[in-house]
């Protein structure tokens, strides 16, 4: 990879200042950014490490909301969210492998918005709020297609606020080589209805499966989705699965998530 300057601020304010330079980019766990820099897909002039900023780390319960700092490790969420939002903790515990979970962070995953990443499904299905260095963004406005988000240059995610559902689960069909989701469904039941978010399937990145939501909001059971599947149009097709296969998995994985919801 090309060389760059490295800075490691200890506060969000200093990080934002360092990122006002056009050539600067945040570095969180580096599990996605460093491999992409090795491939020279990315060549920032300065990397601003977020790993030394205490205010960006931690899992905190605030009433009916679970607040997770952007630089919180997947491994920490897997452990510390378990008592508050078990489905979210289980999702974090299935990302990659243990060494990836010991570096990778929720903020890095959401900023990257890989179409096959796990966290975007939890964030969208929970109707979570992305808190950044200068505003709050609703999940429904945040994800804007594969690898695209509402973040502006220089803006950093500082935390994610998850409303805690009555019941939820994530069902992931693992792509065996990468361990990302070939298709994953996150289902969350709230007092005012059910939300379903699908990752790994669509060329438009994570999306809400509205037909599934409607069926589950009147009857929260796998039977309510009997015979239903996604639309093949606009689904990803690659050597691991055709668009029709992924559309089928939308129904299958959502049913599995509903059966597992707790």
């Amino acid at each position, binding site marked *: 990879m090309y060389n760059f300057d*490295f800075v490691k601020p200890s506060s969000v304010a200093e990080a934002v200042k360092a990122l006002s330079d056009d050539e600067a980019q945040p570095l969180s766990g*580096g599990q996605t950014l460093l491999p992409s820099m090795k491939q020279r897909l990315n060549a920032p002039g300065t990397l601003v490490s977020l790993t030394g900023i205490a205010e960006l780390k931690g899992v905190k319960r605030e009433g009916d909301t679970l607040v997770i700092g952007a630089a919180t490790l997947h491994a920490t969420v897997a452990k510390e969210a378990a008592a508050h939002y078990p489905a979210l903790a289980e999702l974090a515990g299935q990302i990659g492998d243990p060494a990836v979970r010991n570096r990778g962070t929720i903020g890095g995953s959401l900023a990257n918005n890989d179409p096959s990443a796990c966290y975007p499904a939890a964030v969208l299905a929970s109707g979570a709020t992305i808190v950044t260095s200068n505003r709050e963004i609703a999940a429904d406005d945040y994800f804007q297609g594969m690898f695209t988000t509402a973040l502006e240059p220089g803006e950093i995610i500082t935390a994610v606020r998850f409303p805690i559902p009555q019941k939820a689960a994530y069902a992931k069909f693992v792509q065996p080589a990468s361990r990302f989701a070939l298709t994953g469904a996150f289902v969350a039941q709230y007092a005012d209805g059910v939300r379903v978010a699908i990752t790994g399937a669509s060329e438009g990145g994570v999306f809400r499966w509205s037909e599934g939501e409607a069926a589950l909001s009147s009857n929260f059971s796998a039977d309510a989705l009997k015979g239903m599947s996604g639309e093949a149009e606009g689904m990803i097709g690659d050597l691991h699965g055709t668009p029709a296969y992924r559309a089928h998995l939308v129904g299958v994985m959502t049913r599995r998530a509903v059966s597992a919801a707790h």
Partner: protein
Amino acid sequence: MTKVTLTVNGKSMSGEAEGRTLLASFLRDTLGLTGTHIGCDTSQCGACVVHLDGKAVKSCTLLAMDADGGNVTTIEGMANADGSLNTIQQAFQDHHGLQCGFCTPGMVMSASALLAENPKPTESEIRHYLEGNICRCTGYHNIVKAVLAASGQDANVMAAE
């Protein structure tokens, strides 16, 4: 170049690093600790796993400067004080858990992180935990046996092949 200081296997060690210097290269090329291997260099294979502040990490996907001040354990720090193999290393030898040995440093470091978290893992927990460590030789069976044995459990409960 910037000075990076780490505690490596209990000893304070320093060297110069560029922004882009990876922890794996810093350990191998600057500190001369070549036991940590670089296989894929893309965070897939786990040959480069070391412990940073007690946690297993892939040192090919971590900047040396980001680890500055940290406490690192590498395969060179695993043997007993008298130089004999530790329990995990000895179990790899006893159960033929390696052939070419390229993946072994990473396997041993991951196995030791597993046993620190979960001292009596089941066969399936071991297989699951080692998902990020790829071996092109052994077919994994004897590695899993070695980890079972290192945890004080009977490795013969596993099917022969």
